[in-house]
């Protein structure tokens, strides 16, 4: 049974290294020596699952992290290095039972055929809890890692526009490949000696400016049919991708008016794409620093900023305060129509534990969050149906 009650909110947590604050790895609870071990990620996932969260996202990229948005840096005082996020999610999948796992794919340098079967496989190994966030790059250093040359006269906004268009094509290919096997394609018919019915396997024949993909996938249709597709939406062009292609958008509103504007833009893009009948979730991103005592979180952020030598800024609004204060903000933003929140813990595992042990009970007391998992798939947790296969003949009633 899919869960859905009108007052219930969805909660995601975004995992990245030792937390989103650049000095988080120096905190006493931090485990910076373990960032490249399975145990670290498994422990975080277990904590998130204890808190009944909907899903985890895993940040990723095809370059070392950098304080510069579009170029490498030579800093040694920040977390540098990371593991492939699809593999981290797969490593965690057999150790968890309910929580959604949403790794990241960098569109311009990866193969949609490979990512489609990777996420389908993540869906199999997690019994229906897989998703994928598609991300554009815009980074010349990532291009150089793949030997790509870019026309020198392209502006940054040209590049981003091109990559966003490619991202829409990429998602289209992912989705067609997931549907390229009908659910009952495997027949194991001893009488005719056939393992599959080839009439239920479909060429997808996608042709776009950056790639052509013939299909079908080598991996059968995954348990959810269509694993969840997510994208970050923090500007007009990205609203288009979210409304046109995604099941879940992460927006970064500084205030309720901005949330309303982003929602309107995404709904408009959804309408233009002919997707009015589909549910597109919109979660607001917040970077969170949580403590029990009023003022303590702000003090902690100030201390972290001091250690980092710079004030922490990100694309998402930064919250410091108590769980009750965060619950207030969440309820205020929820009134705009956003359907959930993706929280970026300032420090790990500390702020994740404050979310699962303090914020979640607070939201439960207010009747705004589940008290038990009510579905076994990620789509189920988000109230999304298992979609019909685009290639299957319409079911006769």
């Amino acid at each position, binding site marked *: 049974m899919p869960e859905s009650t009108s007052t219930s909110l969805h909660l995601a947590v975004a995992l990245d290294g030792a937390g989103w604050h650049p000095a988080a*790895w*120096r905190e006493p609870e*931090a485990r*910076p020596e373990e960032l*490249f071990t*399975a145990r670290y990620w498994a422990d975080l996932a277990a904590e998130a699952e204890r808190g009944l969260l909907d899903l985890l996202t895993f940040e990723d990229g*095809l*370059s*070392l*992290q950098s304080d510069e948005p579009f170029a490498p840096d*030579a*800093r*040694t*005082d920040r*977390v*540098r*290095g*990371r*593991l*492939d996020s*699809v*593999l*981290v999610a*797969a*490593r965690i*999948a*057999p150790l968890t039972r309910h929580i959604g796992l949403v790794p990241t794919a960098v569109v311009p*340098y990866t*193969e949609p*055929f490979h990512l489609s*079967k*990777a996420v*389908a*496989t*993540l869906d*199999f*190994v997690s*019994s229906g809890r897989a998703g994928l966030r598609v991300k554009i790059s815009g980074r010349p*250093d*990532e291009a*150089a*890692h*793949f*030997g790509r040359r870019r026309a020198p006269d392209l502006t940054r906004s040209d590049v981003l526009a091109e990559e966003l268009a490619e991202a829409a094509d990429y998602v289209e290919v992912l989705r067609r490949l997931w549907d390229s*096997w009908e659910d009952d394609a*495997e027949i*194991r018919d001893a009488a005719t*000696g*056939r*393992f*599959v*019915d*080839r009439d239920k396997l479909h060429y997808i024949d996608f042709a776009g400016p*950056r790639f*052509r*993909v*013939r299909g079908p996938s*080598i*991996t059968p249709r995954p348990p959810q049919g269509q694993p969840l597709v997510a994208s970050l939406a923090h500007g007009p062009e990205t609203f288009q991708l979210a409304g046109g292609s995604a099941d879940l958008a992460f927006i970064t509103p500084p205030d309720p008016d901005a949330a309303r504007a982003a929602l309107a833009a995404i709904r408009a893009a959804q309408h233009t794409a002919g997707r009015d009948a589909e549910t597109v979730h919109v979660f607001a991103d917040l970077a969170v620093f949580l403590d029990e005592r009023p003022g303590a979180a702000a003090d902690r952020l100030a201390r972290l900023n001091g*250690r980092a030598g710079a004030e922490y800024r990100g694309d998402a609004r930064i919250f410091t305060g108590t769980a009750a204060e965060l619950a207030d903000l969440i309820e205020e933003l929820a009134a705009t129509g956003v359907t959930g929140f993706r929280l970026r813990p300032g420090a790990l595992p500390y702020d994740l534990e404050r979310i699962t042990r303090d914020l979640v009970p607070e939201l439960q007391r207010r009747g705004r969050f589940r008290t038990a998992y009510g579905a076994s798939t990620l789509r189920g947790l988000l109230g999304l149906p298992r979609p019909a296969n685009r290639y299957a003949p319409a079911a006769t009633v």
Partner: protein
Amino acid sequence: MTDEARKPVKQIHLAAHFPGVNNTTVWSDPAAGSQIEFASFAHFARTAERAKFDFLFLAEGLRLREQNGRIYELDVVGRPDTFTVLAALAAVTDRLGLAGTINSTFNEPYEVARQFASLDHLSAGRSAWNVVTSWDAFTGENFRRGGFLREEDRYARARQFLEASWQLFDSWRGDELRADRASGAFLGDPDAGRFAHRSDEFDIAGRFDVPRSPQGRPVIFQAGDSDQGREFAAASADAIFSRHGTLTAGQAFYADVKGRLARYERQWDELKILPAVTFALGDTDAEAHERAALIRRQQVGGQTAIRLLEQVWNRDLSDLDPDGPLPAQDPLLGEHTVAQGRASVRMNRDPLAVAREWRQIAEAKRLSVRELIVEVTGRQSFIGTPARVAEEMNRFVQQDASDGFILAPHLTPTGLDEFADKVVPLLQERGVFRTEYRGTTLRDHLGLAPR
């Protein structure tokens, strides 16, 4: 005899090949389970680990096979993404090596290197990479690069791909991570991960983003059999997945490839040779042979026999009677058009010679098409009581036909169980197979030095 006695006893290495998408996997058996559910992979891996195997092995195929222009229906179809399922298996095993076949044509070094380095971290040092080459435009239709790699360039690309990957793995020495809270130094080197690789196939530079993994580099497998392939293996591989399963062919291959090592200043035991083999067990040898024959008939039904014959004849033979004689006409020469997406078809270098040989066998033994295909397409099989199989396997290894075996059972997921329960203890009794894992990494299991 005295030579044998003086020679140190070799330890056998064993690997488990998850049953794949060839006709050798019998899906029609009532005991056959899912080819895609994770429970099947987990059962197979746990059995291999319970039996103290060196590693689990996954093959690769990046396009569904076709014959006569249509998707091939008679064999298992469908498989998971290799990296993803291996990472998940790392969660349900502790020591078993995890080997994946990954193509050097339809991938890029930066991404593959970070996937293997990540798998190595997430499995605490158990990853292995079977490097394969491919050039067919048929598979290329699923990928950005399409199919424009010339056949003769494939080893150059594979070698350069591997060299680029090694540069990426080695771009972190292993001492850069400080994570020193007091001083604020996370990295000890602002240049960690710096690399640049320029060759005919790749021109890449920048910084690799995965710190050095427990094994440094994953264990490298090579599977090609051509002169170029053997040289590539002698220069670069840690192990060979070989096809030479008979004792004499195995010994010749073993001597040839190991003999090439000195050219690269490598020792005899730095390259393991592991042929793919099958097995059939029984309480008596006669019973085992009956079971083996039954399995072969399950693997080669009448339709399958015709399709396998078409792969050599390069003609549509749909009208042929599988219980009758071979076709009168010879194979069609020129471009192979009947079957696509099969490495075995690409290796049929001289179809006329194969046809001639098969005709001779069929005539001499009075075999129908199906009986002939059963006879000529079987892989080396160890057949007999567990004691006989253990003895034969050990003889194979001690007489330098191989360093061990990659076992390819015919049943998913339980095909390895009987071997684990009955043969492994006998090998252990003989003192030629481990009773406990001594190390934690796959390099430890294979007796390979860290790289």
